[in-house]
């Protein structure tokens, strides 16, 4: 009987709360009172959540940014610093248009060596794996097309099997050994020794292929953009961190 009430009551609703929900009608509870109770409860719930969210969000964002920084330096060995480039109107740009949200833009991380030349690009991308979305970040050299590293950022793959994509070092190391792209996944022992082969993990074929697919898809998507040229990043001193 209280369907409509509950539906409207998702917590975000208007503050025009009725003045007194405590009408002394004990026996026959009015619809008004039912609505009022749930409205008050919903408003309080929403308020509480928003308050805690305001408190925790900076902490969560800071942690994420730190994790990202560590990951970028890990998959781009030997870079001195990196800048974040956003994809704006099919072009790479260091800034996003005024008044837009940072999270609406896809981005890559361009790493520079000690001479301020582009020496590697890191891309983060997620696709659904065996259980849930697998989010990885990988680095590659735009001139040779070879990979320089890969790190799984987020994965809920089956413990003991699918989680080998980040626990099985033999698998992970292949991405740091500079394989050529596009990658192809082969069963261990079935490879023909080509430079773009990656041995998949026995028992975790799907998860390993997901990693390979993510890298291939990301490169397919980003290569044309990158080849159109990366605008020169302003030279910053080595100690001045680029913005995240």
């Amino acid at each position, binding site marked *: 009987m209280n*369907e409509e009430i509950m539906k409207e009551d*998702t*917590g975000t609703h208007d503050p025009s709360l009725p003045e007194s929900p405590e009408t002394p009608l004990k026996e026959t509870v009015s619809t008004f009172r039912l609505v009022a109770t749930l409205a008050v409860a919903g408003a309080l719930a929403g308020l509480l959540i928003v308050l805690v969210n305001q408190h925790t969000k900076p902490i969560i964002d800071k942690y994420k940014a730190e994790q990202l920084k560590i990951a970028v330096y890990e998959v781009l060995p030997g870079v001195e610093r990196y800048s974040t480039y956003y994809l704006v109107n099919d072009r790479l740009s260091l800034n996003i248009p005024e008044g837009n949200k940072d999270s609406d833009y896809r981005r890559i991380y361009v790493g520079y060596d000690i001479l301020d030349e582009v020496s590697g690009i890191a891309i983060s991308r997620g696709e*659904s794996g065996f259980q849930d979305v697998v989010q990885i970040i990988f680095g590659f050299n735009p001139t040779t097309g070879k990979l320089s590293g890969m790190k799984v950022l987020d994965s809920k793959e089956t413990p003991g099997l699918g989680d080998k994509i980040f626990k099985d070092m033999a698998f992970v190391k292949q991405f740091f050994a500079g394989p050529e792209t596009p990658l192809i996944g082969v069963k261990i022992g079935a490879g023909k020794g080509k430079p773009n082969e990656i041995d998949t993990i026995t028992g975790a074929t799907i998860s390993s292929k997901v990693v390979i697919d993510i890298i291939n898809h990301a490169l397919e998507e980003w290569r044309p953009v990158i080849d159109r040229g990366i605008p020169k990043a302003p030279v910053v001193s080595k100690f001045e961190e680029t913005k995240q």
Partner: protein
Amino acid sequence: MNDQTLFSIFFSAMVVNNFTLAMFLGLCPFMGVSARVETALRMGLANIFVLVLTSLSAWVLNTFILESVPYLRIISFIIVVASLVQIVEMAVKKLSPTLFRQLGIFLPLMTTNCAIFGLAIFQTNRGYGFFQGLTFAVGAGLGLTLALVLMASIRESVEFSDVPEIAKGTGLVLIIAGTLSMAFMGFAGLL
């Protein structure tokens, strides 16, 4: 967004990542109503129906409302699921009183059925689009039905065998479920 093919979503939800046997969702009906094949089947079908509705509503919420307030996701999903279950209950009661009687307590119990809520959460986490969500819901529902019916048929046969006193009850059901889950692991290589 997500570019998984519909076929792989369907197959994954139905057998490889079977909601009950691999992700432990919807265990209450799995333990409670798996004693008879017929009730199990009916419960499964009712589940498919509610799952599809949930998937639709979750999609609507995600696309139009929760974009700007993602932190209200849990609260709005549970409210939608609860309302949905009650609307379905009222509709069934009105349209087909016979079916309503047959489903009995299982229908309202679906509110706290993790499978329904889990579907909404997983669909969101994986960024499924409209059709992907629908496929996911149907696949998951069929998977639930499959698990329920399999379990029920095993339990029907076990009933006539000589089971030690201590194993009668939930312990045995869990061990059968474990065995079924192992069997379902065999599907993992198929995708």
